[in-house]
């Protein structure tokens, strides 16, 4: 009965989006919502953005800063949150770190670069709290998240500011969040803390495949609901999660569930605008793009 064209979704092979998509397929949510999904699995985040630019997929997961910047450059993208989960600053449980102040003079891994958004926010936070820039009092080491996790495990780093899925695995391996990005945002006056990552697609898609989009998001929330409540769905995902310990599995499940987003409303848009203001102050045009203004029309809110 499905005559319509499929919706092409690009995702990371071992990314968390795939858990969602697997659940949609596994529980036949797609059939129920009458949407056909065609998945292109890729090996890196960059690959998904390339795929979107090259028109090989309709929809990917990315952060809204990126989307807004592209929009300002003339690429009419839209955004809808996928996860509330933000990163965290992970430290060893047994080293007695209890606040940012304890990180003075320590080596601190930062996923990505000096312009990483979480890192900029954390620095602003530390300026508020400690009246000192974390970049000055600690020694930041920038690198790819998997490398940083290993360095932390080897004891070459004292803490790591990393993405939530890496944080979850570290959590299971004897590390704890010293500070959550949620807290940072709250401290900086951004409430409710807006989701950073979400689905990104072009406006045309609303014209060419309007039903599929609507159905897809219904399917997503359906799958989220399943993942939130049913452990059986998780057991099905387990083999593809590359889990090493039970604890890791539990933590990943917890973190994921905590990150399932609430619907985006005007409050979120307000918070996002505030966040954008802070970040463009901290990171300047290099971070947000020379031509970028906050653009609330990026955030797609389905009618009704």
């Amino acid at each position, binding site marked *: 009965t499905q005559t319509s064209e499929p919706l092409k979704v690009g995702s990371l092979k071992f990314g968390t989006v795939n858990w969602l998509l697997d659940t949609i397929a596994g529980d036949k949510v797609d059939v129920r919502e009458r949407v056909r999904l065609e998945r292109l699995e890729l090996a890196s985040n960059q690959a998904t953005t390339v795929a979107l630019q090259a028109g*090989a997929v309709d929809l990917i997961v990315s952060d809204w800063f990126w989307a807004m910047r592209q929009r300002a450059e003339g690429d009419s993208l839209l955004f809808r949150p996928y996860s509330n989960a933000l990163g965290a600053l992970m430290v060893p449980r047994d080293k007695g770190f209890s606040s940012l102040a304890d990180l003075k003079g320590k080596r601190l891994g930062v996923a990505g670069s000096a312009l990483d958004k979480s890192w900029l926010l954390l620095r602003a936070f530390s300026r508020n709290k400690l009246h000192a820039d974390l970049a000055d009092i600690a020694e930041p080491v920038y690198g790819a998240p998997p490398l940083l996790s290993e360095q932390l495990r080897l004891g070459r780093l004292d803490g790591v500011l990393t993405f939530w899925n890496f944080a979850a695995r570290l959590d299971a391996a004897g590390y704890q969040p010293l500070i959550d990005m949620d807290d940072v945002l709250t401290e900086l006056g951004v409430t409710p803390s807006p989701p950073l990552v979400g689905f990104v697609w072009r406006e045309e898609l609303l014209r060419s495949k309007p039903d599929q989009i609507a159905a897809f998001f219904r399917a997503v929330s359906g799958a989220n609901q399943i993942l939130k409540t049913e452990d059986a769905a998780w057991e099905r995902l387990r083999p593809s999660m590359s889990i090493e310990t039970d604890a890791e599995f539990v933590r990943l499940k917890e973190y994921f569930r905590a990150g399932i987003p609430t619907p985006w409303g005007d409050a979120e848009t307000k918070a996002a605008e505030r966040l954008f203001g802070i970040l463009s102050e901290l990171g300047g045009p290099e971070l947000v793009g020379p031509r970028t203004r906050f653009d609330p029309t990026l955030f797609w809110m389905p009618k009704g």
Partner: protein
Amino acid sequence: MKKQSARRSTHLAWSALSIVVLVAAWQVAASFSDPRLLPGPGRVGATLVAAGLDGSLFTNIGITLARVFASFVLAMTIGSAIGIALGRVVLLNRFFDPWLILFLNLPALVIIILCYIWLGLTEVAAIIAVAINKIPNVAVTLREGGRALDRDLLEMASVYRIGRWRTLRHVILPQLTPYFMGAVRSGLALVWKIVLVVELLGRGSGVGFVIGSAFQLFDVSTILAYALAFVAVIQMIEFLILQPCERRLNRWRR
């Protein structure tokens, strides 16, 4: 004056010994470090066998190999032609030298993105991207060869008016053999490395895809397993194609 076959088999014995020593060194290094960070031969072997049994190893290596092969042939052909032309014709070289330097030094990433964006996320785009990355390297190596040609022999060819084609075939190409073999060897390696990046950035299959995914999970064992499997394939190509070829081509040497 050993017999051909005897020589061949001592050669194989040396290679075997060499590989044994290498594996032993690896084992020793691995036994001093966390198996997550440097898994030993045993662990990587197990991963390899598992990947082999479920077939994914062969599919992915096969796919990557096909891409490597296609772009390698493309790059060697075009690159050699450009290199020889630039090496022989001074004016051409003057004009195109800056272009060559540009393409030689353009980051792989730039070329790959542009190819993918222009040609779509397709197989053709991937292969062209790799070829464009490799062509300048081949050209540069062969250009040096083209410049260092024996003038005595070229003069002979010109006096005897043997024509462009025969000159190329009988006088120029044989002198370029060592440059060509150098370009083939480091070229095969380079192409395979670029294919990895290309697969990482826009293909849903192949060794690069697997390695990229494994990196996200920090699964060094899988990374090594796939890398070594590919190295083994290249080793085979070396033994079964390149070395016999080279022996044939060098038969004339005293």
